[in-house]
């Protein structure tokens, strides 16, 4: 369900960018999704097949790059990978941690086809 809602948002952007570039077709779409977004790539791809139907991006492929979560310790100022959603600094043990990576949700690039 979550992925379908996201897929609808992506297609809006993809159509807008394709039009802006006067493309004939969209062949590939590259997404960056932070781990905390909980996007299951296969689910998003399934939703994608459905939302692109009849659009300029019909039959396009969607690639999802998952960005691992990274924390920044407020106490010792070090960054570290957050494993198992444990927002605790491995260097000083502080739980005062900012999330610096893992919340991304972006259309990174698209492969477009143009009229000859």
């Amino acid at each position: 369900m979550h992925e379908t809602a996201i897929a609808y948002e992506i297609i809006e952007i993809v159509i807008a960018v394709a039009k802006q570039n006067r493309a004939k077709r969209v062949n590939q779409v590259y997404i960056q999704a932070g781990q905390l977004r909980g996007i299951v790539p296969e689910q998003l791809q399934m939703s994608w097949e459905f939302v692109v139907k009849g659009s300029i991006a019909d039959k396009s492929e969607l690639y999802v790059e998952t960005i691992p979560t990274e924390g920044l310790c407020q106490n010792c100022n070090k960054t570290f990978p957050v494993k198992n959603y444990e927002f605790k600094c491995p260097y000083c043990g502080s739980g005062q941690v900012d999330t610096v990576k893992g919340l991304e949700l972006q259309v990174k690039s698209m492969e477009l086809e143009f009229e000859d």
Partner: protein
Amino acid sequence: MKVQVLREILEFNNDLAAKNRSGFDEKHVFVLNIMSSPGAGKTTFLERTLKDEFLKDYRIGIIVGDIQTTLDAEKLEAYNVQIVQINTGVPCHLDGKMINNACKDLELDKIDILFIENVGNLVCPAEFRVGEHHKVVLLSVCEGDDKPLKYPLMFHESSLFIITKIDMLPYTDFDMEKVKQNALQINNRTDIINVSAKTGEGIKEWADWVKARRKDVFGS
């Protein structure tokens, strides 16, 4: 040809949410986005909040989101509050646009605190900002203490975690310490309040939290 796009997928919604938020700020409406799975007790909790009158010095507004029916709004109608029901039809969450539309049916000038009761769902509502000052997540003791780990974004984004139905604790294997540990592991800054809408336990503490956070934003 490959073209760089670098656009936020939720930009459309985020822009609308930001617009809602500046409208709320301008009118000094303090907005809380209340989320949980279906059946955690959002409506009953809000009902008890109104009934116990700890917020009686504030004019309350409520937007209720459901996929179907106006049952929740009907329950809350008995209290002297402005209320709007949104039926999303298909979407499993509220978004910036729905809230923008719903606000047209509210007299925001006459609201100090607006509760937005989101559609019951621990996933999508966490993704879609509506213009709120804070997100609040409810979890009942009937649901399992592992939920913060299963729905990390929801707990990561919420400023307050309310554990509901604590009167039912003796009948479950729900581990209070474990759930708090799980929530704090994901979000060390979250506040936690135990509540029973049946006995009224924790309702005052919740009302005090609302008042304090409102004061942080508007100074009164």
